[in-house]
């Protein structure tokens, strides 16, 4: 019965969606349409010095969203640690992993770490940036976590890193607020030469901070979910 009702509700939803949006069938929008994004596109390279327009939107034009998004991850990590705090039970013995897996993962980690750093550092030039880079670093960490019995995971270090990265994000914003632009997250560094690694003002800095924060938060989320017993 519940299935029927929810099916009817959702069918109604689709019908509504289809009829009132002018149909699910719509033509492709053309370049002459009017949108904020296209305005940004025509000015972003000159204003921010970033070759990747998505990056300049994420970090500068909508940098406040990114701050909020990092906060959401921070909250998720905090929430997982609230619910997954150790209950005092004894830890089960983890099955011993094979030597090859262990050694392989240890070898893989530096490579993944470097790759993540590369992605973060080139966020303003090519696709990628703080989020995927941070995730790749965290994934490298999981590989070790999943294959080894005991990992020296310093929870305090992680929460210090999270806090420090968050504060640096806000700090970078406040420098812009106190600077001549008088606006939070305002770029206060020279733009540099277009399309080189050291360019685009504070974008690489913010992305580095975001990368550290995302990496630390995701690592502590997965660690807390796996190890808390």
């Amino acid at each position, binding site marked *: 019965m*519940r*299935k029927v009702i*929810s*099916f009817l509700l*959702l069918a109604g*939803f*689709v019908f509504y*969606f*289809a009829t009132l*949006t002018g149909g*699910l*069938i*719509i*033509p*492709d*929008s*053309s*370049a002459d*349409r009017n*949108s*904020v*994004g*296209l305005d*940004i*596109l*025509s000015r*972003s*390279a000159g204003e921010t010095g970033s*070759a*990747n*327009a*998505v990056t*300049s*939107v*994420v970090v500068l*034009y*909508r940098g406040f*969203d*990114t701050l*909020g*998004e990092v906060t*959401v*991850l921070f*909250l*998720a990590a905090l*929430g*997982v640690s609230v*619910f*997954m705090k150790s*209950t005092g039970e004894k830890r089960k013995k983890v099955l011993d992993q094979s030597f090859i897996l262990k050694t392989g993962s240890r070898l893989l980690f530096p490579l993944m770490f470097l790759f993540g750093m590369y992605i973060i550092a080139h966020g303003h*030039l*090519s*696709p990628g940036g703080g*989020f995927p880079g941070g995730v790749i670093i965290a994934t490298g960490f999981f590989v070790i976590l999943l294959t080894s019995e005991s990992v020296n995971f310093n929870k305090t270090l992680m929460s210090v890193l999270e806090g420090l990265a968050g504060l640096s994000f806000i700090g970078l914003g406040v420098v812009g607020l106190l600077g001549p632009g008088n606006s939070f997250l305002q770029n206060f560094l020279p733009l540099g030469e*277009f*399309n080189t690694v050291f360019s685009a003002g504070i974008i690489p800095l913010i992305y580095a901070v975001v990368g550290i924060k*995302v990496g630390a938060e995701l690592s502590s*989320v997965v660690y*807390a*979910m796996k190890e808390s017993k």
Partner: protein
Amino acid sequence: MNGVLSISTVLNFGSAGLIVLGLYIVFTQKNLIKMVIGIDLAETGVNVLLVSTGYIKGNTAPIFSKTGLQVSSMVDPVPQALVLTSIVIGFGVSALALAMIIKLYEKTGTLDTSKIRGLKW
């Protein structure tokens, strides 16, 4: 391109389908982890919808290179930035939901919503 089927149409169908499937899973399934899967799917569907709002047929990714691509041949970067945010938020919510569910499982020993008193709605 033939009149009816356009890329935006395909994407709209896909996203609407995914949202509806996700919500259907949330409404009908009794397993808590499966409900979280449903939320995850619906969120993915919304992300597809968002990206498709910025799509302009035949245009390239909004990345400038030294050879100098024309601005008029790029897609809208704003929805992509929004989707980056919403993907990360979606992950945060899923991870939190699963942590709560694990803890609830430790207290009640079941994942079945019909067996958990407070979850009958």
